[in-house]
Each structure stands twice: as C-alpha cells, then as structure tokens.
C-alpha cells in the first residue's frame, strides 16, 4: 500500500514538473521551427535557425543586452556602496536617532518603488535623468532590503575582530573594508544574485523612464518587439524570448545551487 502511494506521489511530482516546465519547452521547440510546423505540432519537422535570424534583425538586441548589463551593474555597485555603509552604521555604530531611521528604512520595505511611479518619474525628470540608465537604476540603490541584509551580516561579526583591528590602528573605514566586508562575502554573493535577477527582469519602471533604444533594457525591448501591432508571428516571438532569457537561464542552470542558496539567504531573516 505504502509502496503504491509512494509511486503515485513520485508520478504526481514528475507530472507537475513536466507541466511546470512545458511552457518553456514549447517556446524552445517553437523557436527552432517554422510557424506552421510549430502551431501544427509537427514533431518531425526540420529544425531551423530562421526565426532567430528574423528576430535578431528586427530589433537592436545587442544594444538592449548591453543596456540591461549596464543597468544591473550600475544598480549592483550603487547598492553595494549604499547598503554596506548603512548596514555598518546600523549594526556597529551607536548614535542618537539610529533606531528612528531604522524604522523609516523598514517602512520603505512596504513602499514599493513600483507604486510610486508617478512621483518618481517627476523626480527623475527633475534631476535630468529621464531616459538614462542611471535614472532607471537610482531609485533601487538604497534598497531597504539590502540594508537589512547587510546589517544582519555585520551583526554576526565577532566584536573581538573589530577591537583587534582598532588596536592595530585601523580607522573606521579600514575596519569596515578589511574586517567586515570580507567576512560578509557570502551575503554579498547572495544579494548580488538576487539583485541581478530582479533587475534583469524588471519591466514597469524601465518602461516609464526609458524612451529610446539607447537606454531601453531587454524586457522593454522584448515587449515592444512582441507587441501585436508589429504583427510578429509566434515562432519569431519565441525565438526573441529565448534569446533574451538565455543568459540568465543558462547562468541559473549552471549555478543552480548558489542561486537557490542566494534566494534562501535573502529571504529568511
């Protein structure tokens, strides 16, 4: 009885896995077949790269890739600097007003940048950052979540190391840079993976702030490319979709364990 139910469960788990992955598999398959073969599920149809050729010629993908790459890099560097300094202040420096500011930061966890699109758009325009990669990235740099994560990581550093470095004549910055940052390396890695995958995939805010192919990230480019007005067929859209998810997807499949660990470390506070 128990063996039978075990088999049924294993079957259920596998079935769900196949269902879950099937949209991706279908798109992958369609991307390599002509549209008529794809919609008719002609399994024996020949494989082709034509869809990728058409898709590639249809939009400045290289520029989009570059923009997305620059965007996630700018955001990550900004976040590392801002959250390291703030996290250290919250974890190891005692000063009046600290707890009040910390509550403000926690509040920001719930004021989603996505919700404030109207005023943030006005702010970015006022700062002259409209249609720039910095303009897309800036609102995300002081991530409350990142500050929280860094604070937790720095709190775990033994105070003896801090004291030892001070006795050796290290200043505040030296202690932060030589003691805290190296010890928090796993947290940085986790945060980087979460941040990169979040912003690689972000759409609404970049859609609002960018207005030209020179700044548009992949997600916005893909949505414009696939818009029904453009009348692109399903195989070509599949090819374009595959192209734009490939880097992150391949990275995920290769570094799966680290990815999952990263999301876990980031999620469990």
């Amino acid at each position, binding site marked *: 009885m128990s063996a039978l139910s075990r088999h049924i469960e294993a079957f259920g788990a*596998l079935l769900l896995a196949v269902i879950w992955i099937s949209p991706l598999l279908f798109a992958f398959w369609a991307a390599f077949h002509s549209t008529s073969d794809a919609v008719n599920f002609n399994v024996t149809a020949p494989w082709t790269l034509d869809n990728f050729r058409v898709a590639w010629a249809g939009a400045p993908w290289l520029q989009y890739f570059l923009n997305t790459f620059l965007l996630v890099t700018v955001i990550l560097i900004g976040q590392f600097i801002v959250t390291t300094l703030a996290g250290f202040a919250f974890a190891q*420096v005692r000063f009046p007003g600290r707890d009040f500011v910390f509550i403000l930061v926690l509040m920001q966890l719930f004021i989603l940048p996505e919700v404030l699109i109207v005023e943030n758009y006005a702010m970015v325009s006022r700062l002259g950052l409209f249609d720039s990669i910095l303009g897309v990235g800036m609102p995300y740099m002081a991530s409350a979540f990142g500050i929280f994560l860094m604070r937790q990581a720095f709190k775990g550093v033994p105070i003896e190391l801090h004291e030892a470095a001070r006795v050796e004549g290290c200043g505040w910055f030296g202690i932060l840079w030589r003691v805290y940052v190296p010890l928090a390396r796993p947290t940085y890695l986790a945060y980087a993976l979460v941040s990169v995958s979040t912003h690689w995939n*972000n759409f609404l805010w970049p859609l609002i702030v960018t207005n030209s192919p020179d700044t548009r990230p992949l997600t916005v480019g893909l949505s414009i490319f696939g818009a029904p007005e453009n009348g692109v067929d399903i195989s070509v*859209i599949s090819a374009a979709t595959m192209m*734009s998810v490939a880097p992150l997807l391949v990275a995920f499949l290769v570094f799966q364990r680290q990815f999952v660990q990263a999301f876990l470390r980031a999620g*469990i506070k």
Partner: protein
Amino acid sequence: MAHHVNIERRRQAVYGWLLLSPAVILLTTFAFYPSLATLWSSLFSRGTRRRPSEFVGTENYTDLFADPTFWKVVTNNLIYAGATIPISIAIALGMALWANSKIPARGFVRTAYFTPTVLPMIAAANLWLFFYTPGLGVLDQIGSLFGLPSVNWLGQPETALWAVIVVTIWKEAGFFMIFYLAALQTIPEDLKEAADIEGASRWTYTRRIVLPLLMPTTLFIMVNALINSVKLIDHLFILTKGGPNDASKLILYYIWEMAFAFFDAPHAAAMTILVLVVLGVVAGIKFTILDKRTHYQ
C-alpha cells in the same frame, strides 16, 4: 574622563550619520518625498492650459469612488489576490513536500519547479501567449483532441483575469517552494522517527507536525504573496492590456494607465495613496502581530 567619553560619543554620532547619509538621501528622494508629494498632488485638480491646477481637497478621491472602472479594478485585484495567494502557497507547499521526499529525478523536479522564477514576467507572458492563442494555441489544440470548441482565453471577459492569474501562480509558486524547502530541512529527523514509533500515518505526521512547524514560513510567504498581488502586473502589458472591457485590469496597471496614457496624474496619485494605505496596514500587521508570534531566529 567624562569629557573624553563625550567626545567619543559625538564622534560616533558624526560617523553614524555620515555612513547613513547616502541611504538617507536616496530614500528621501525616491521613497519618502515622493510619498508625501503623491499625497499632496492627490489633493489638487489636474491643471489644463485654460484652468491651472487648484486645491480640491478630497475631490479626486470621491471621483474615484464614483468611478465604476475603479471598483471593477479593485474587485479584479481582490480576486487576483484571493486566488493567487492561497493557490500558489498550496502548490508551493506540495512542491516542497515532494521535492524534499525521496523520489526519482529529484534534481530535475526541483529545477523544473524553480525555473519560472528566473524568467522575466514579460518573457513568461510571451510563453503563455503560445498557450492561450485561440485556434492555434496549445490549450485549444489539446481541447480539440477532446472535441472541445476553440476558446479565446484572453479575449473574453469571463476567462481573461483567470488566464492572467494562472501565469502569476506559475511564476511565483516555485519561488515560494524554496522557502518551504529550507524550512522542511530544519525539522529534526527524530520527530519523524517518533511519529513512526507511535504508528502515526504519513498524513497525520504531515498535518499534525510538519504543517504547524511551517507556520512562520507560511506567514512570511503570505506577506510576500500579498505584496506580489499588487506588484506583479507586467504580464498584463503582453497578454490583455487590462481588457477586454477592463475585465483583467489590476490597480497598478490602472495607475500606470491613468498617469501615462490618460495623463491624469491627480487621480493616479489618489489611487497610489489608497494602495500605500493598504500596504501600510499590511506592514503594521506584520511588524506588530506576526513578528511577535513567530520567531525567525
């Protein structure tokens, strides 16, 4: 000596604020000031060339409450939250229990469950478009095998919102699974052994021991899912654009449309404030009630 301590304390304060200043400046610029500015601009009328914007008090809010589209969108978002939160949590729990048990091809199963998480919502929408397209789509093809008629999943008001909901669940269930998986691995083995000795069935063990121990994780996921039910709207841009007849329009999409398609910033601001109030209540509940009852560390 007291003098010395005082100087040290002042030095700490200066360092502290210097370290915090980049974060404080950025948070003020892109979170706190915009929140207040939104509240402020929600109290003014929309300025036109002839009539400059003027203070109208709560008129934008009363307009919204009188707007049937607003109520339609709110209802849609409640259905969206009411469906995506429990269903994705239930699926995530099932996935985690399976992915944690000894089944064949466990690596593949885990990867398959988690993969949608790393895809952009826009790409996910493109993939699902292939399923939903009437006549040509996968769903219709499967349906026609059983002699079912072609259904325009995204084009008819009865199914459009549900088609959107399915994509959201598909996207987030694997993500939530990870948190359950981590929690499951912290449950000590001896509990299982004790349950076996007592002759408890697997179902009893799951229901009476595992589920209660997963409660803090469930609450954490629930808050995340709730935030997602406001935030995850990217796929609307591809799948339905809120249509047909606003049948699948969600609040954040409506805010975007109001502000950037109809150029009606004051009403968009009023709606933003209402969303912020709801999020504030959720935050309040989380920080006061939930954090007291559950311990993460």
